């Protein structure tokens, strides 16, 4: 297996892609460590270390997704989240607004336009979140328990705030660009890879925290549980419902084409990790809003009590429902049975026992719905299982080794490894997955 990694680096253009992706990750992490202008670095460090030991309620959750950059008020503080949120919003709107739907059906040109809208929306969200973050930091609410919390932003002038907002928004734009670069010229999906990196960055510290707070036994238990979950996730990710497709044999000139039989692989979890990413990034918004607004209205209290802790029943239920919803939603937009049926018809393919065209599409839809139900329930349950175990454990609420973390790490890891592997196999190497 290790030789396969070595081979990946020996293949010139694959090496180029891998190194390119790594270089982008380095740039990303660099930006996540440079403090934004107007921020007093020493005070931030002090407050962050205090917050991580005392365990602020919201910090664990928010910090997880920004890879620790948010609390440190760096230039990449907002992370990839605005981009993800923007693309969720646009994908949801595509279903609702006819004009966007028309654009989507237009093909490549329309898709480019939608991407452009997504970028604008990302910037708008970036400005919004950056303003919130800067204002919260300035007023000292960001680190309310910290003694020097109000001195985190060195100057109280509006110019400082404006500079911070502009810098962070620009940072968001750069992250978006980095993500797209990875998608275009690197390995894997940029958005997922950056998300993966953010989570990976916070992971060692968090897992070590368990050891320090609970001792060796729970630490080992958590690791074992985590490894079992990894196995389970891989198991379900690899499960496919294969729908047989037969291609008609036909003569074009003197050659015979087709006549082969293949299958359409429908994964049990066709949507992959996207539902989890979407659900968690939507669910962290109310908490973020409350944190930024510093409001003490009744709704704010409700959100603070119910939505900021990963082990709260209401949080779990909403999270679960969102995951199930997004699983169906994403399968709905990414796999179009009619299109598949049409394509099959064009090339003379058919599912034995079904007529080409509408009947085939209906059958595909039939199987897809029935296979996505267990798939989405699995996603939701995996995301919750560690939380439930946690309640039983009576452990710290900012449990880092949650199902979300594992799903994202393993899902993105599997996707990336497979992509590298398929590129290796194109060059007739054996690859690491046999």
């Amino acid at each position, binding site marked *: 297996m290790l030789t396969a990694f070595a081979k990946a680096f020996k293949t010139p253009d694959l090496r180029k892609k891998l190194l390119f992706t790594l270089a982008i990750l380095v740039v990303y992490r660099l930006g996540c460590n440079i403090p934004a202008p107007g921020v007093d*670095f020493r005070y931030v460090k002090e407050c962050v270390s205090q917050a991580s030991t005392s365990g602020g309620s919201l910090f664990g959750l928010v910090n997880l997704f920004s890879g620790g950059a948010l609390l440190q008020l760096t230039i990449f503080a907002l992370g990839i989240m605005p981009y993800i949120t923007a693309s969720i919003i646009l994908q949801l709107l595509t279903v609702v607004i006819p004009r966007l739907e028309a654009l989507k059906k237009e093909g490549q040109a329309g898709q480019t336009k939608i991407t452009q809208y997504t970028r604008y929306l990302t910037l708008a969200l970036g400005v919004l979140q950056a303003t919130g973050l800067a204002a919260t930091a300035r007023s000292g609410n960001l680190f309310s328990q910290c003694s020097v919390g109000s001195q985190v932003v060195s100057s109280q002038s509006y110019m400082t705030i404006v500079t911070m907002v502009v810098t962070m928004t620009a940072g968001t734009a750069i992250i978006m660009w980095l993500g797209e670069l990875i998608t275009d010229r690197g390995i894997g999906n940029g958005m997922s890879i950056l998300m993966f990196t953010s989570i990976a960055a916070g992971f060692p510290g968090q897992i070590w925290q368990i050891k320090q707070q609970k001792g060796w036994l729970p630490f080992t238990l958590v690791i074992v549980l985590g490894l079992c979950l990894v196995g389970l996730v891989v198991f379900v990710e690899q499960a496919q*419902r*294969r729908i047989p497709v037969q291609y008609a044999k036909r003569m074009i000139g003197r050659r015979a084409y087709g006549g082969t039989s293949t299958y359409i692989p429908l994964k049990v979890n066709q949507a992959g990790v996207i539902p989890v990413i979407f659900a968690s990034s939507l669910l962290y918004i109310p908490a973020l809003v409350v944190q930024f607004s510093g409001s003490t209205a009744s709704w704010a209290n409700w959100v603070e009590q119910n939505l900021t802790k990963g082990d709260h029943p209401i949080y779990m239920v909403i999270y679960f429902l969102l995951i199930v919803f997004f699983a169906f939603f994403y399968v709905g937009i990414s796999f179009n049975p009619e299109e598949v049926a049409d394509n099959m018809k064009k090339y003379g393919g058919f599912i034995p026992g*079904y007529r080409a065209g509408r009947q085939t599409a209906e059958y595909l839809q039939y199987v897809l719905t029935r296979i996505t139900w267990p798939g989405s329930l699995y996603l939701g349950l995996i995301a919750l299982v560690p939380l439930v175990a946690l309640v039983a454990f009576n452990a710290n609420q900012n449990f880092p080794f949650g199902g979300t973390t594992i799903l994202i790490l393993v899902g993105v890891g599997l996707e990336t490894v497979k992509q590298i592997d398929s590129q290796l196999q194109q060059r007739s190497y054996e690859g690491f997955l046999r």
Partner: protein
Amino acid sequence: MGSTATPEHDGRGEKSDDGKGGRRRDRRKLGPLGRFALFNRQIVAELRKVVWPKKQELRQYTTVVIVFVIVMIGLVYGIDYGFSKLTFWIFG
């Protein structure tokens, strides 16, 4: 397996009651509970046709993924460590 009334319930007589006709008439006759039960049976029937990964495949993929994730975490941690030292040196 009972009657799941899937489009292909015994793998051969698929054409007879695929999709529309048969199933929809079935549904109208059933109450909501019956429909739910039918749907569940159909889910189970589909799940039986799923190709689950074999033991060897599963082991291989799991190891590769774990190695990959650990390598990436180590890498990112290393990069981060370097950069945080650097920023500390410059700004601290």
